[in-house]
């Protein structure tokens, strides 16, 4: 581990120890938050007993579907928009202001349109993630040097083939940035929707545990979500570094 990595690990360890100390000494009372070691033990208990497995599976599956939809439609949408300057210009203010709008307000609308199943939550996750993918993919496509496209045309490749073999691979690091956002947003969308109105999933369980002062369930579930999202993000960042490293950046 590098020296800086070491400092960072020490800093995080120190923060956790501080938290542990504050909890054990009673400065943070048990009702507000259990000590970190307790949270970890409770998490282990939950995972081993499998009591939350259905909820965990439901949330992660729905978030994955929302993510996949956001990625596919986002990338395709960006490629389509990239070729049509006027359409892109018209939509750009919408993209720029999109994330200030409370997308969750559309949740009731989606429930009426799609019924009470999993679809509305996936819809919210998708709606939140897709614009981040579009904006970042467009950014990457903008940066593809024209000479690379000309080279592909000289090779007599068709439009779709050029997009798949040249434009998108060239834009890949930027698309990855969009993917990172979409991962976070799909989780936010699904869990937030589960908070508001749902019959299952981790958001529902956390909300239920909160109402019942069940910290032994609530905190471990929160920790699990944080761990999953940080792990995925770290993996994507590492991949991004590899891609950029090959390009000497």
């Amino acid at each position, binding site marked *: 581990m590098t020296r800086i990595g070491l400092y960072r690990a020490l800093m995080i360890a120190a923060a956790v120890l501080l938290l542990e100390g504050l909890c054990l000494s009673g400065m943070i009372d048990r009702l507000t938050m259990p000590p970190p070691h307790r949270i970890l033990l409770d998490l282990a208990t939950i995972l081993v007993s499998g009591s939350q497995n259905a909820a965990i599976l439901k949330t992660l599956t729905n978030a994955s579907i929302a993510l996949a939809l956001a990625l596919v439609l986002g990338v395709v949408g960006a490629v389509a928009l990239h070729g049509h300057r006027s359409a892109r210009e018209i939509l750009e203010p919408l993209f720029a202001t999109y994330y200030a709008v409370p997308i969750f307000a559309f949740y009731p609308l989606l429930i009426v349109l799609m019924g009470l199943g999993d679809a509305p939550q996936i819809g919210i996750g998708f709606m939140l993630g897709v614009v981040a993918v579009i904006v970042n993919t467009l950014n990457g496509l903008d940066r593809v*040097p024209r*000479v690379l496209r*000309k*080279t592909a*045309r*000289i*090779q*007599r490749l068709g439009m779709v083939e050029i997009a798949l073999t040249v434009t998108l691979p060239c834009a890949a690091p930027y698309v990855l940035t969009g993917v990172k956002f979409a991962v976070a947003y799909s989780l936010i969308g699904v869990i937030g929707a589960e908070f508001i109105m749902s019959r299952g999933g981790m958001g529902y369980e956390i909300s239920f545990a909160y109402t019942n002062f069940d910290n032994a369930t609530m905190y471990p579930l929160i920790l699990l979500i944080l761990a999953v999202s940080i792990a995925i993000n770290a993996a994507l960042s590492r991949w991004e570094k590899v891609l950029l490293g090959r*390009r*000497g950046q």
Partner: protein
Amino acid sequence: MAHTSSAHVSLRGVTKVFASATGGAGLQALGPVDVDLRRSEFFAVVGPSGCGKSTLLELIAGLTAATTGSVEFEGRRVAGDIPDGIGVVFQEDACFPWLCVEANVAFGLRKAALAAAAKVRRVREVLDLMGLAEFARAYPAQLSGGMRQRVCIARTLVSEPRLILLDEPFGALDQQTRLLMGEEVLRLWRGTGATVFLITHALDEAAMLADRIAVMSARPGRIIDLIETHWPRERDSHIVERSEFGAVTARLWKSLREESLKTIGRPAGQA
């Protein structure tokens, strides 16, 4: 004037007008141009900046369509589609940064009707030919500018094009590297028997490499002089020692000087 059927590439009355973004009169970048390229000849074009040399190259390659006139390659009209058998090396670095050298060169065979094993062999051959064999697994970011251009040339050669278009391929390189690359291009030209069309702003480069050199006027570019060098096919950079070399460059500069002055905004009569 009819197209000469023996010419490899034939341009008749070609002009290119770029449409104006605001809807007014367009910008005439080029023309009218009438010229034939003979099979297996080395043809160079020199001219002041902005005269339309690159546009001319793109018209021949089929990357863009002529506004008036016709372009023919091997007897067939070039319009909108890229014909088979053409290779282009651009001025900018066109290596794909996410692929290693070998994969870059192999990209040139995407549309080739060869078995996979044959493709691998062909790529190896060209890598050896261009002196890139030991860098096969390296990424373009790890190579110098000259080597990256070699990779682009290799990618063009691997599909065995019959017409090779080079748009100021050595523009970003230093003088010594340019001379050596020029010799390499001559070697490849003789080895492949392809017709070579080179755009350059370096007069000595054109004079050394080409069988015929066209001088273009300032925008809109037309051909104002066409020089035959009568060099032997087996030539290298020693050609610069001949007295005729000086005569060729002198004639090039004489034709070019007035046009260049026009481009930088000074009237031709002044010093």
